[in-house]
Structure formats: structure tokens, C-alpha cells
């Protein structure tokens, strides 16, 4: 009698568990089958691989370092962005913003995967945001997005090589559209402090003279 009661209880428990677990197990099985089919087709988005992305970024950093000036590399390494002076493009024609600024020197802050920001270094006044991307539609690993440092290098080369062409491709907005102006002002302040410290460091090294 007791055995029969225990067996009946076990059957009820199993039935209840089945009711609870069956939808979850079916969902997991569907996901597993879908992933297997996608891998077999060689189609669809491959899984995100943090190791691959990290190696890609490491390669991109090396390339960036080998192309930009030592000061710009140090700026990117220490601050996370690069300042590029405007109006120095090798392409023909007037500087892009000089007409509006009556010759005042202007520069760009170049961040990875964020708009390029034009500003006046003398006053810190923000001028414009230029939203620009470099999408690779071949999507070799399912994404159109270049590694961070490649994005910075692409912007740097395009600004240096043909500022007008890059700016004409970008969507121009007033400052604050995508990047918080307070963050920009803080970055401009950080850049000023960083440059002063570098200058002081260099002056100190000169004053001490070569190490023996």
C-alpha cells in the first residue's frame, strides 16, 4: 500500500516537473538546433568572440602607432582621443572651416566610433559634430564595425589627407547632439593639462641633461 502511494506521488511529481520544464527544454533545444543549422550553412552572424576582437584591436593599435606622430599616439593612449589640427590637409583648396572663422586655428577631437568634434583650441568653443562611419559592408565577421583604433586611424588619415572630402561625407550637427558638451569641455581641459605636463617633463629632462 505504502509503495503504491509513493509510486503515485512520484508520478505526480514527475508530471508536474515535466509541465514546468518542458517549455524551457523545448526552447533550449530550438536554440541549439538553430545554432547548429546556422553553423552548417556557414550563414548568419557568427558568435561574438571577445578574444578575436581583442586581437583585432591589438593589431589596429600597432598600425595606428606606426602611422601617427609620437605625440598623437601618446595622446590616444593616455586620453582616449587624438586632436587633429584643421586646415592642414594635403588636398587642394581652402581649409574647410577657415572662411567662417576668419583664419582662427581650429582642430578636431577624434574619438573611436563617435562623431568628430570641431572646436577652437584658443577659447575651447565647440563648433560642430561631424557624424561619420567607415562601414565595411562585406561584414567579414558579421559586423561592419572596424576595431576602435582602426576607426581613429581612418579618421586621422582622411582628415590629414583630404579634410574637405571627409567633412562633406559626414552629417553635421551642432555640438551636443551625440556627445555630451560637458564631457568635451572636460576632455579639452584634460588635453591642456596633459600637454603642460609633457612640456614640463621635457623641460625637466633638458635641465637635468643626459643621463649618465
Amino acid at each position, binding site marked *: 500500500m505504502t509503495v503504491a502511494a509513493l509510486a503515485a506521488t512520484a508520478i505526480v511529481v514527475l508530471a508536474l516537473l515535466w509541465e514546468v520544464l518542458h517549455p524551457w527544454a523545448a526552447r533550449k533545444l530550438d536554440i541549439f538546433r538553430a545554432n547548429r543549422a546556422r553553423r552548417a550553412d556557414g550563414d548568419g552572424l557568427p558568435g561574438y568572440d571577445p578574444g578575436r576582437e581583442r586581437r583585432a584591436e591589438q593589431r589596429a593599435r600597432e598600425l595606428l602607432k606606426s602611422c601617427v606622430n609620437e605625440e598623437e599616439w601618446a595622446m590616444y593612449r593616455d586620453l582616449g582621443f587624438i586632436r587633429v589640427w584643421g586646415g592642414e590637409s594635403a588636398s587642394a583648396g581652402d581649409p574647410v572651416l577657415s572662411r567662417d572663422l576668419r583664419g582662427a586655428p581650429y582642430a578636431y577631437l577624434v574619438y573611436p566610433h563617435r562623431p568628430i568634434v570641431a572646436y577652437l583650441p584658443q577659447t575651447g568653443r565647440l563648433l560642430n559634430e561631424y557624424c561619420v562611419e567607415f562601414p*565595411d559592408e562585406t561584414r567579414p*565577421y558579421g559586423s561592419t564595425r572596424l576595431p576602435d583604433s582602426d576607426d581613429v586611424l581612418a579618421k*586621422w*588619415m*582622411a582628415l590629414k589627407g583630404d579634410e574637405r*572630402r571627409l567633412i562633406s561625407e559626414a552629417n553635421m550637427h551642432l555640438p551636443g547632439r551625440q556627445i555630451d558638451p560637458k564631457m568635451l569641455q572636460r576632455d579639452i581641459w584634460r588635453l591642456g593639462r596633459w600637454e603642460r605636463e609633457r612640456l614640463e617633463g621635457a623641460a625637466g629632462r633638458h635641465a637635468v641633461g643626459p643621463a649618465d
Partner: protein
Amino acid sequence: MKFLRMRPGYGEQLLAEGDVEVAEDEERLVEEFRRQLEQGMWAAVPVETETGRREAEMVRAFEDIPRTTDRVIFFPRAAGGAR
């Protein structure tokens, strides 16, 4: 001369390499250059000025590449970002 291309999820990839003074190599490089531009790539050449400053030049034709340059970097053409 090396042709490098920035790739998502990879970094730079070597597309082609050759000596522009060797006709066969040059022909191969010209073909690859055209192929990349047809795919919508922009091409840039890192250069160094007389004062030692590093700069970049954008090139639109193979003939524009300085003969002495050691690498040309291809990257996807710019497109307006978030509206």
C-alpha cells in the same frame, strides 16, 4: 610595397605585396588597387615630411602613390553617421 586593408574583427590584412620596379609585381598591385577602389575602399598612404612629421595622403589612382612608399592602407569609404 604592401597593400593593407582594415577589416572588422581582424585589424589590418595583407592584400598584396610587391616591388613596383618589377613589371609583373606592379601589374598585380595595379589590379589589386583597382579592385579595392571598385569595392568602395578609400586608399591612404602614410608619409613623413622633411621635418619628420607624420602625415597621410589620400590616393585615388595607382599613379598617385609615391614610388618610394612602403605601404598603402585601404579602409571603407566614409558615410554619414547617426542622423
